């Protein structure tokens, strides 16, 4: 018994097309964690457990993504609830990508100040989140075209912040700006 094939693409091409975002997300997750971790010898002693959490959450986020993509492809009749089903529901119990993001930022913060390194981490984390979203929703990269100016502006602001950090701006001013921005984020995240 075979599932009805989707119109247009052949099954093999559809599988490859769905595997590309998963592969890209995996590579970016590895890059994010590795970039935040190195060099470990300069890091605070508390960085090791945070690294373990980041690695675990990265893998769980990728597994969750793969499980969701697999589940959307298999609607086979008379499927018995199995260990795979249980694992899939367990994977959906926690937001692993969000936990990984927090862990990676904490890992970066446990290293000595290195503004350009942190800015590059921000770019990779953002790329990971965008690819994760594309893979999760099955959307094409073209859907991000309207937000490209915003991403460019954000990256420019990040570069400015790196300059400010390099020029040793006042810590109090940074704290004030950051707190104001946090309030803005909270307002934006209020329910629709």
């Amino acid at each position, binding site marked *: 018994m075979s599932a009805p094939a989707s119109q247009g693409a052949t099954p093999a091409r559809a599988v490859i097309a769905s595997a590309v975002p998963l592969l890209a997300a995996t590579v970016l997750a590895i890059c994010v964690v590795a970039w935040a971790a190195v060099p470990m010898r300069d890091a605070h002693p508390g960085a090791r457990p945070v690294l373990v959490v980041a690695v675990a959450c990265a893998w769980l986020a990728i597994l969750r993504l793969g499980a969701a993509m697999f589940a959307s492809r298999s609607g086979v009749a*008379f499927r018995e609830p199995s260990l795979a089903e249980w694992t899939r529901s367990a994977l959906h119990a926690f937001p692993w990508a969000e936990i990984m993001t927090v862990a990676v930022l904490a890992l970066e913060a446990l290293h000595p100040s290195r503004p350009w390194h942190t800015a590059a981490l921000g770019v990779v984390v953002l790329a990971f989140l965008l690819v994760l979203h594309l893979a999760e929703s099955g959307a094409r990269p073209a859907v991000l075209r309207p937000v490209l100016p915003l991403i460019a502006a954000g990256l420019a602001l990040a570069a400015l912040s790196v300059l400010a950090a390099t020029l040793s701006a006042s810590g109090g001013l940074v704290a004030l700006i950051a707190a104001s921005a946090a309030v803005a984020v909270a307002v934006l995240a209020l329910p629709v």
Partner: protein
Amino acid sequence: MLTAGPERTVTVAWRLSGHARRLVTLALAALFLAVLTRRAEFAGLAAPALLLLIPRRSALPPEIGVGLAAEADQVTEGERAAILVKITEQRDATVHVRLRPEAWITAGAAALGADGWYRLPFLAQRWGQRLVGTLEVTLHDRWRLAEGRVTVMLPRIACLPRPARLESLIVLSKLPARLGEHAARAPGEGVEFAGVREFVPGDRQRRINWPATTRRGSLQLNTFAAERAQVTVIVLDVSIDLGPAGFSTADLAGRAAAGAAAAYLAARDRVGLISFGQQLRWLSPATGRRQAERIMAMIALDSPDGEPLGSVTRLPNAALPPGALIIVVSPLLNMRLIEALRELRERGFATIVIDVLRTEPDVGLRGRRNRAMALLARRIWRMEQDAIRFSLRELGIPVVSWDGMSSLDEPLAAYTRRALVNQP
């Protein structure tokens, strides 16, 4: 022809999308670290995520219109069909449609057609009147920061059983005096050669067998078998359902009954059906395509009509014309039916049972300590089943076993080679 169903307006529940939640997490974590560590680069790290969250307040449709249609009113097992969905009033939100199927179907990927209808294909794999599943519509705003979800319950669809293959028919030795396609024992005007006899005045001269006449020295005549129609009544027992979905006793019984009805109707026989389910329902024997449709509908569709099974003491006379062949498709688990079969045999009906029991019941005993008890219980159950089948055979009711996969011709082969004697 596709017909659009009534379009309904559904309220959309909007919330932050997973993408937006992750951006919020990134921005808040970075800003918190910026405050905590007084490092400006963390505030900069939050900037792209913060900017991506700004355009969230776009006009989101509070409601959307959902139009539903089905490619066909009813499908047959193993047949591909599709549910058609049209989404309207979604403004500039992008729409993703998905079918969450019930266990009896295999769902395919949704595809948007040029006419604006989404086509949700599925493969029906179990007969009956069943729910298809739920329609899940996910909407995203232009910035993909808000996510709206709508769930619509899809209506029931009637799925007819896939008829089991049956090519050789069981024919009774004595057939009713009704013109048909089965060669009877009585001589008549058919085309099947029956023998040679002495010519008597009044016989048709074109039937004289000249070689036999030459050998015997007197006029000899070819005789032919009369062609008669048979009355077949199928008793479908779905009162007890046992076994895995798709291959349960009821699934197999429905397919066997559909296959037998189709084969006998194709041979221009009169076919009736007695459905022995939660209620006793029957169709009097008749011929033709309309009867085939009625039989399939009675097998597949639930109906509150009929007599409650508890009040039934014998099978209805109206559904059992004298001289009919009775084909019973049953797992032989319902003692009421077994008693009815004994009574049928006593009334002189030629009866044959197709046994569709392929599984054994779970005795409900677990653990090493109960293992011996479970084995014993199963053994007793098997012996009871063997005894039931033995008693039926002793009464002159043949019981054949069908696995649900092969053709019905295989188990019935012993009874299709020669006419079945229908006198006790």
